[in-house]
């Protein structure tokens, strides 16, 4: 029982939840105002489009991460998943080019199919390790993360692969709106529907709240958790190939550390690391926008590249702290 001696904190009881709920919009607003005042070019349609375009590939990863987090899991292999996908796509494109085959519609279909399959495969491996073999998600995905990176480094011989042809999709736009942004928004709508309106979505919410009870009431916990990792891996793969196209080259540090961007964006958007709570529309989108805005703003301020790491760390800390303060259940 709460101690009686604590004074009633007027307002705070109403203010705090409100702050937790809308805090991210406030932070986003403050950031935009701050960067606008320091750099007049920041607040322009062109820069807004740049931010959206930068945000999109990783944002796709955030959508997938929401499903893993909602079942109280975590997937830290998404960054290296993106790297491996990009490397393998690069190799496939080189051999297509050698065969004079690159550039046809069919070649593109194959390229994106490879990306999705590689991502999906990593997702299935993670899902099996967690759901079937009961590994702790953090460790299971740490293992696949290492393996993915190792395979990618061997396959690429640690050399930079140039993939400018992917820019057709990654940097293309229709009516001023980048394709990648359209893809992000469509996927967000689809997966938000999956999470909110389908039985699968309700059941993963239940699993995240109490997986033992979920098993008892007859939810197929193993299958649903596996699917969550599958969604996460597949979307990360797609994000990887789109991101590679934006940069035009895949170097050894491509997508390195993206897992933290993805996880912190998801958490900033209101998805809980404790499971049972997730938001894709607008959560995942707002989260990734905030993260990207900060990076973009810092670039325009000519901040030291090392400062990114500090800011990134700060964002993760903030997101996780708010999540913990907000968490009402039993701590594990």
């Amino acid at each position: 029982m709460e101690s009686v001696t604590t004074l009633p904190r007027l307002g705070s009881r109403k203010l705090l939840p409100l702050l937790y709920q809308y805090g991210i919009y406030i932070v986003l607003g403050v950031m935009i105002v701050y960067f606008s005042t320091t750099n007049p070019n920041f607040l322009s349609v062109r820069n807004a489009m740049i931010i959206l375009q930068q945000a999109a590939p990783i944002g796709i990863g955030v959508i997938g991460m929401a499903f893993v987090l909602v079942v109280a899991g975590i997937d830290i292999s998404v960054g290296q998943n993106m790297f491996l996908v990009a490397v393998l796509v690069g190799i496939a494109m080189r051999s297509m080019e050698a065969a004079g085959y690159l550039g046809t519609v069919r070649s593109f279909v194959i390229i994106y199919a490879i990306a999705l399959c590689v991502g999906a495969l990593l997702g299935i491996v993670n899902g099996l390790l967690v759901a079937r073999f009961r590994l702790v998600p953090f460790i299971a995905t740490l293992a696949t993360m290492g393996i993915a990176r190792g395979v990618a480094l061997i396959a690429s011989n640690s050399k930079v692969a140039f993939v400018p042809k992917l820019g057709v999709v990654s940097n293309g736009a229709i009516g001023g709106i980048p394709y990648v942004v359209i893809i992000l928004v469509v996927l967000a709508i689809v997966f938000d529907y999956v999470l909110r309106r389908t039985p699968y979505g309700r059941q993963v919410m239940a699993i995240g709240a109490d997986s033992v009870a979920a098993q008892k009431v007859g939810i197929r916990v193993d299958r649903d958790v596996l699917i969550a990792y599958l969604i996460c891996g597949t979307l990360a793969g797609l994000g990887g190939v789109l991101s590679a196209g934006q940069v035009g080259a895949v170097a050894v540090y491509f997508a390195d550390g993206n897992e933290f961007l993805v996880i912190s964006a998801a958490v900033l958007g209101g998805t809980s690391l404790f499971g049972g709570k997730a938001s894709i529309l607008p959560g995942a989108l707002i989260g990734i926008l905030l993260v990207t805005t900060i990076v973009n703003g810092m670039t325009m301020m000519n901040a030291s590249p090392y400062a990114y790491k500090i800011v990134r760390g700060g964002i993760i800390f903030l997101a996780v702290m708010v999540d913990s303060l907000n968490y009402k259940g039993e701590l594990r």
Partner: protein
Amino acid sequence: MPADNVLTLRNITKSFFGAQVLHGIDLAVRRGEVLGLVGENGAGKSTLMNVLGGVVPRDGGSIELKGSAFEPTSPRDALKAGIAFIHQELSLFSNLTVAENIFIDELPTGPLWSVQYEQMRAKAQEYIGAFGVEASPVTKIGSLPMGVRQTVEITKAVIKNAEIIIFDEPTTSLSQKEKESLFKLIERLHHEYGITIIYISHILEDVFALCDRIAVLRDGHLVGVDETGRLDKPAVIRMMVGRDLSQVYPKVEKTVGDVVYEARNVVQGRAVQGVSLELRTGEIVGLFGLMGAGRTELVRCLFGVDRMDSGEITFRGRRLRSITPEACIRQGMAFVTEDRRQEGLFMPKPVKDNLVAVGLRHMTGLLGMVKRPQESAEAAKAVGNLGIRVQDPERQQAKSLSGGNQQKVVLGKWISQQPTMFILDEPTRGVDVGAKHEIYEIINGMAKRGATVLFVSSEMEELMGVCDRILVMHRGQIIGSLERSEYHQERIMSLALGGRGR
């Protein structure tokens, strides 16, 4: 012999870790009856019900449900077959709504796999109205009190067409009022819906009030089934523990010495308003009071768990300067509460680790390394002395033990330190009769060795059976102290209610 048995269990056997838990149980459940299932913790009630619910497979025997063989392999099978469980820990999801929880395993879907929320809510509302659930279908479970949550779970069972509902200790986390409305609801399930009910509890009053028949399990055997009207409480207890009620409170030859512990004018907020007490060596002193009388607050202050506003404590002739749990432990005191989880029982750890947790630093050798043989020996000794029922203390987790045995482990953890003063706050709550008896024996043993025991309980009968003296609290003050010769239930109660106690 009425043949209308909805469920028949024949010769059910089950073993865990090589220990036989069920020895060929034969039990027939009649259609539409309320059957009470009682037995000590560890008697096999839960295992029997888990076999029935498909949670654990049985080793032998057969189950016949509504005239045909029933082979459940998962809780889902049992539910499909019309058997629902209401456990003490509910299977509800706090982040979902009432309606979502009710239909979570089979959400109604329309086009594009979309959940049909309207349809779901309407159907949920229908039953919610009928059962008087004080919530709307769109309320999140997390915002509801335990009693309402339980009603939701029951509603769910009825919507799923359950024909048999098994209640496993359903009143544990309910208030008195919630308990009463639960019983009303059970009556309705029984009368209006014709649902067969199996009610498991160790609270015999409830079982007698609710059930048509009572089945008693002891050590994995069914020792008796009979109409409630032909049984009485002492008879059931005799069946449960295999001995008479009068033997529940063991007698002990011991000597009460000099005053060793003295508290003066202890004040804490409004809960404790100037309490003074004296305790002697070898004395067992009961502390009785109604809810909110300040018993728990007082003993928490005495042990330094909560800070007292003013007051002083003298122990073994010395005034205690700082009253913190650490200081009290150093002085040779121990504090055991009903809350075994908070108490610091490491649930996922083996029994052995728990038993030696406090005394570990005295079992170290070179470089502070733990002497494993000594550790095991100490643990084995405690298991033997306290009669803890555990197959393998080195490996079996604390959480696998029954409540009574967990409490014995907690006591054992402290006893290894040989404290001279024990503060026990409801040490037997949630513990069955047999284990209670054993805990009383442990308490007597402590006193016999010269330790002082302050025993807080809300069960008057147990205080009268165990204590040399009973202190009665009312509104933060001790308003009466009764010697054994003055014990009288009505007198204690009227004191607790604030009367003179004549």
